């Protein structure tokens, strides 16, 4: 069992555990349900199921981003500028992968916090994701308007 004092801390996390030096410990927590099950006491199972549904909703968000990227690759005709289409595609794919990995990290940390009776981990990831998607949409709007004006 891992030392509770270090694992319970949510302050050190910003967007992703990948920025934290405890990255390998965090990844092991994703896979190690027996560790989760031995720590603290089991919460009402309905809370665990709600946590699971939140994880699945985030996973679908990631799948939607990945699907969007693949749709751009499959259906958008080549643009005036080379590589713009590829950049959009790869950005969406990377964003989707990041959402999926962050989803399981957040799921594991919420599960642990509930077992320990601690506050749920706070996260800036939703805000950052919203800003990134908003900025990307504005950038795409500019691309579409400029290419439309030129033709």
């Amino acid at each position, binding site marked *: 069992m891992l030392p509770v004092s270090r694992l319970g801390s949510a302050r050190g996390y910003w967007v992703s555990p990948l920025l934290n030096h405890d990255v390998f410990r965090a990844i092991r927590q*994703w*896979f*190690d*349900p027996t560790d*989760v*099950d031995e720590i603290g006491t089991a919460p009402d*199972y*309905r809370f*665990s*199921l*709600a946590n*699971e*549904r939140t*994880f*699945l*909703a985030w*996973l*679908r968000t*990631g*799948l*939607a981003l*990945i*699907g969007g*990227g*693949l*749709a751009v*690759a*499959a259906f958008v005709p080549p643009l005036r500028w080379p590589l713009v289409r*590829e950049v959009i*595609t*790869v950005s969406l*794919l*990377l964003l*989707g*992968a990041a959402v*999926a*990995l962050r*989803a*399981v990290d957040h*799921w*594991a940390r919420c*599960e642990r916090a509930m077992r320990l009776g601690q506050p749920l981990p706070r996260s800036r990831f939703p805000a950052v994701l919203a800003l990134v998607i908003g900025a990307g949409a504005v950038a795409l709007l500019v691309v579409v308007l400029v290419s439309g004006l030129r033709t």
Partner: protein
Amino acid sequence: MSTGDPQPPGLQAERTRLSWRRTTLAATTVALLAVTAAIVDNPTPFGLAATALLGFAWLAILAIAHSRIDALGRGVTATAGRWPAILALLVTAYAVLGAVLII
């Protein structure tokens, strides 16, 4: 809660099962889009290999989701264990395969 449970406990499992079901549907859509991107316009040996890998990943996602749906249907209340992590890695594999196909 002092007023008692406002909804039957079984509903929580039902909602979670439906959430898994929606996730398999989303994964299926993404898998079909990936196959479209991989082989429909320009089938290459590499694209076909990537399609095979995507197919395996899709089957694995389906198997995980169905085992969980089945467990929830039998009234199991244990947490999902390691399956969320494996599911997230399979979704990440979709993204990586897609990126490799584009580049």
